[in-house]
């Protein structure tokens, strides 16, 4: 069994939670919207102490967490079924904007300018010698996509970290993560998943001291951006007609565009048939960064060279913020999410910024 892991507090710009800025249990400083006290693991939302995990163990953060206020009317009361007591709007599973920062690895997710909900979910994890990130993008044409993407991300992150800390290699761990994500996404369909159950994509990356591995189902991507002396590359192949054509060597300019060409051929959810992840591992010779992202980002810089040129230097969180800002400035048509994982992972990467 892997060590117990619970998501740590995620920073968020959503409406503040009911608790203040100090933990009612141990008095440590906490963020207003934190879910757990990082010092003592007190559940700040439920107001109860949680079991403290063995340290050092894997630590992870997730963008999962229903907003405290209704995105449509600002109401703060929700019925037991998750609809706003004032305007009836369904309460989404995640916040409009999340910033996850574990120092060595970071991610930012934003609703963008056009969508009503942020259906992109992201989780990042940190353990000795490895960094991990998972992004699931809710398929907008499916029913309540966020009810698939957020549980899928959480299940995947937990499974991924448990497998890695249990000694599995990155690829088997990514396979376990995809299985867990599929199970969670399928559950979102409920007892009677209709014709169009909640669905999402899946992409996860693991960076170790000597390898970069990614696994995916769908059209979210992972990019390898070397710091120098090498060509940036997209490690994933979109599970769409266009993506498959491009993967066979058809020049990008000749790959058909439009809804049909871009339509997903694989996804996670109750109606998904083929959910085993594609896997790719590279062993870069020099340092670089792995970006794990949703199409809300790469639609504006699809080519690896373009994306590399647009990716700012700095700490992982600064890089993630910069990339999300780029997508928002370019139009923010879709939800935008990116996780930044520097390579190589440091064997003992426990230090975090205050």
């Amino acid at each position, binding site marked *: 069994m892997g060590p117990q892991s619970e998501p740590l507090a995620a920073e968020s710009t959503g409406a503040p939670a009911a608790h203040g800025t100090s933990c009612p249990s141990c008095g440590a400083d906490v963020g207003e919207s934190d879910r757990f006290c990082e010092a003592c693991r007190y559940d700040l939302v439920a107001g109860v102490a949680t079991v403290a995990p063995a340290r050092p163990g894997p630590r992870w953060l997730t963008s999962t967490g229903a907003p405290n206020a209704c995105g449509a*009317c600002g109401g703060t009361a929700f*019925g037991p*079924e998750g609809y706003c007591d*004032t*305007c*009836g*709007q369904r309460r989404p599973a995640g916040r409009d904007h999340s910033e996850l920062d574990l120092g060595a690895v970071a991610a930012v997710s934003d609703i963008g300018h056009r969508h*009503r909900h942020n259906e992109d979910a992201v989780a990042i994890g940190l353990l000795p010698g490895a960094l991990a990130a998972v992004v699931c993008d809710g398929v*907008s044409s499916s029913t*309540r996509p966020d009810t698939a993407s957020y549980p899928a991300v959480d299940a995947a992150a937990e499974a991924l970290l448990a497998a890695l800390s249990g000694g599995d290699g990155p690829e088997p761990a990514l396979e376990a993560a995809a299985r867990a994500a599929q199970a969670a996404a399928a559950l979102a369909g409920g007892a009677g998943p209709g014709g169009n159950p909640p669905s999402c994509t899946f992409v996860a990356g693991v960076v170790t001291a000597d390898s970069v591995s990614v696994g995916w189902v769908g059209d979210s991507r992972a990019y390898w951006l070397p710091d120098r002396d090498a060509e940036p590359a997209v490690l994933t192949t979109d599970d769409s007609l266009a993506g498959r054509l491009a993967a066979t060597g058809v020049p990008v300019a000749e790959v058909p565009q439009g809804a049909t060409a871009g339509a997903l051929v694989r996804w996670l959810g109750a109606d998904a048939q083929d959910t085993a992840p594609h896997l790719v591992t590279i062993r870069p010779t020099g340092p670089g960064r792995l970006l794990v992202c949703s199409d809300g980002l790469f639609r504006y810089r699809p080519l690896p060279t373009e994306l590399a040129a647009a990716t700012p230097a700095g700490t992982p969180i600064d890089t993630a913020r910069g990339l999300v800002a780029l997508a928002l400035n370019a139009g923010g048509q879709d939800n935008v999410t990116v996780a930044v994982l520097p390579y190589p992972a440091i064997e003992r990467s426990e230090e975090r910024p205050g």
Partner: protein
Amino acid sequence: MSEPAAAFTAEVYQNQYLPAGGDVVDAVITVTATGTGLHTGGAPTAAEVIMIDCSGSMANPPTKLAEAKKACATAIDTLRDGVAFAIIAGRHDAQMVFPPDSTLAPATPANKEAAKAAVQRLLAAGGTAIGEWLGLANRVFSGHPAEVKHAIMLTDGRNQHETPAQLAATLSNCEGRFICDSRGVGADWVANELRSVASTLLGTADGLEDPSELPAAFQAMTQAAMGKAIAEASLRVWSPAGATVRFVKQAFPQVEDLTGRRTDLSARVGEYPTGAWGAESRDYHISIQVPVGTVGEEVLAARVSLVSGDSVLAQSLVLATWTDDTALSTKINQRVAHYTGQAELASAIQEGLAARDAGDVEKATSKLGRAVQLAEESGHTDTAKLLGRVVEVIDAPTGTIRLKPKVAGVDAELANVRSVKTIRVKKSEEG
């Protein structure tokens, strides 16, 4: 309030998908109380008042009063031991038959015998003032602690010894105080009067063609009253800010428009009375106008629950999701369509008969033709048969009819009083 002695379920039938710009959400909610625990204690206490028409016309033919007495005796025998009861004789005024004073007596074997003996001595003489009868029943019930207060009102004639306004005023006094089933016997009762009594007092209305049907009818009504597991329940409807409840109708077993009977609990929540519940199933058709949402958005358009006191017996959610997929948004929910048709059928019959009475042949032919067509389409054979007694059907599918020149008055009244009775959509027809 004792624990509910029945298990309730609520199911919703709707197409939750609206096209871009769509703002009306229709749903049918089926509320079913199953017999589980219905008779295992916890049944509410009950009181029963029977109003029997003793006007002069009850003697013509004499079987009317004789069968009415028999029916009354059967009802008395059907009362659970200990249920409080009273019998009222209705004429141009109302008089206590049993017990002698204006109160309720417990249904002991001795009291039942005494009541039956008193009923046997009744004579037919005098007029008809239904409001007087209901008024006395209301006084008899008032102050009694019984949870289910149920009355049966039998008349054979028109309410001619008081004005419609007097009856309306009495009904308004009685509303919410007791439940009343109204029945007509003979050839001279008026469907609109029976329906307005039943509608206001949350009971049923019907006419009996043959006096010999009375004992069975009285027994059924009394049994149903004794079988009530919940004395008083309301349909509670939450709707979002900016929404309008277009209507709330009971759609099965009979059409009853509850829209105007809303009691506001808050800006978002209103309650509609549904009366007492036994082991039974009812359908409600609710229509909500919601603020237009954007494509992809999902809102709760209504939360519909059956409540009794503070306990929620059953609940279901009416959702709205906007989509640009026309295959989804144009799909018609069969139950919603069916009950929309059944409600139209009821009004077509009522309006057609009213036009016929007023001598407006054109309107009567058009409305009753539409009624024949709707009855045919929905497979409502009972209503089709009743309409066949009033009109000559030339072609049912197109609603082509001719008014019959000579129609027995009671046939038109039967078609009217039963116009509100609906049938359920056949399972096999649901898509």
